């Protein structure tokens, strides 16, 4: 006898449902939030790994989505239709709390944005790691975050703005300043060596 294929879909929830619609449905439909998770969990996990490394990322992924479950009632999705800028905004705060807790335990080498050990493990020469660290250290946190969202997470500038709760003009301006400042720091480090 013919059987329907069982999958975790429900009323109004399918691969074609937009994130914005899923979040509205998810107020009373668990499958809708399940679909959001399936679409974005791995991407959010990569965001976490880039900042704090693989092991803590596994733990913090659940924290990000637990906050998202509560936040789904109030969120208004970015015009691009993607829930990612919103989820990155949550992830950023989760990472900060985690790093703040580590710093309070007097662990060095930790700033509020990411763990340098996690970054150094992905670079092919110690000198480059030092240069990157020097350049990023020159950036105010607001500029640094825009730069990372656009380069590491591949958000558009307007999505990065949405994630940070600032205007697109402000984000564009911060990105411009961040690149100028970081590249100037890289040049001065090269010339003084």
């Amino acid at each position, binding site marked *: 006898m013919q059987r329907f294929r069982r999958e975790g879909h429900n009323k109004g929830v*399918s691969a074609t449902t937009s994130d914005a619609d899923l979040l509205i449905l998810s107020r009373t439909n668990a499958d809708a939030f399940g679909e959001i998770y399936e679409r974005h969990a791995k991407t959010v*996990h990569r965001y976490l*790994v880039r900042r704090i490394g693989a092991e803590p990322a596994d733990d913090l992924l659940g924290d990000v989505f637990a906050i998202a479950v509560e936040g789904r009632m109030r969120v208004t999705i970015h015009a691009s239709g993607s829930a990612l800028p919103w989820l990155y905004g949550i992830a950023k705060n989760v990472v900060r709390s985690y790093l703040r807790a580590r710093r309070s335990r007097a662990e060095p080498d930790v700033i509020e944005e990411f763990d340098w050990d996690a970054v150094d493990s992905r670079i092919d020469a110690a000198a480059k790691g030092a240069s990157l660290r020097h350049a990023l250290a020159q950036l105010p946190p607001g500029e640094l975050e825009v730069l990372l969202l656009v380069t590491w997470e591949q958000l558009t500038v307007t999505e990065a703005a949405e994630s940070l709760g600032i205007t697109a003009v402000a984000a564009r301006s911060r990105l411009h300043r961040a690149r100028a400042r970081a590249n100037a720091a890289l040049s001065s480090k090269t010339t003084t060596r």
Partner: protein
Amino acid sequence: MTIDDLLTETRDVPSASDEAIATTQQVVLADVHSSIARIRKMAKQRARRRRLAGAIVATAACGAALLVIPRGSDGPPSTMATSPDVGPPSTTATASPTSPPVVDVDYKNASQVLTATAAALGPQDIPQDSDAFWRVELVDHFPGGPSVSRTVWSSRDAGVYIQDSRDRPEGAHIGGPAAFGTSGRILTWDALFELPTDKASMLSLLRGSSGRADADRVAFKIVFELLSTSPAPRKVRRALWLAAADLDGVALVGRMADAMGRHGWALTDGTSTYIVSPETGRLLESRYKSPDGIVYSTTMLREGPTTTAPKVTPRER
């Protein structure tokens, strides 16, 4: 070397293991279920308060109604007779001086509406090539927000494209392959064309697939999901309408117009209401009422085969 070069070099990271993703998913879904349970409890409490307030108002209105005398009526006000929900549909012929008589059918129950809709089905064009598309044009209505026009192109091999007036005006390729259905029961394109074409087999398939106590309610949703978005051939559609006519728990709401002003008959299982047209054999609109009382609806505008989908270019980063 620029800052962008250095950041690009440090961008690649290993993906999460499937196990880590699945473990967290279980925890997250438990959180969602618990949150939904809280919302439903609050909605019930609100509804109880509203009912209580309504009862007080109704009691007050009863007293006031005794004083109302209907204008232009010599006799006592008539009360609307409730039609029994059995017996054949009754028909009334009305004629105007300029148009031929229109036969107005009065259906007594949901089964009559669904059977008549099956009988009225027109021919169904089907995409012939594996990369041809089934194009569905519809409008979504959300409470408190503007309506969103949405068009979906589904194909067996070329994936699914979607274009909507709010989030994706330029269109997007969702990937594929196309799949149809709902409530945990999804059909591939090929499986859709292998569905039974007689009522008994279709009913057995629909009921047997869920294995749940509320099998008929689940079946009702699947029927309408397939009728609204899929390129199911005419014989399959006919079997779906006829099978729906035999499902328990489907009530006739009555005549109703959809958001486009098209007239049809509304049927409901309590949470989902569908307006269908027994004259054209088409589903006109579906409405879903969430447990907290919010109504979402989708109006079906047109559907049919096409060989072209939107030209979508990857979004610039």
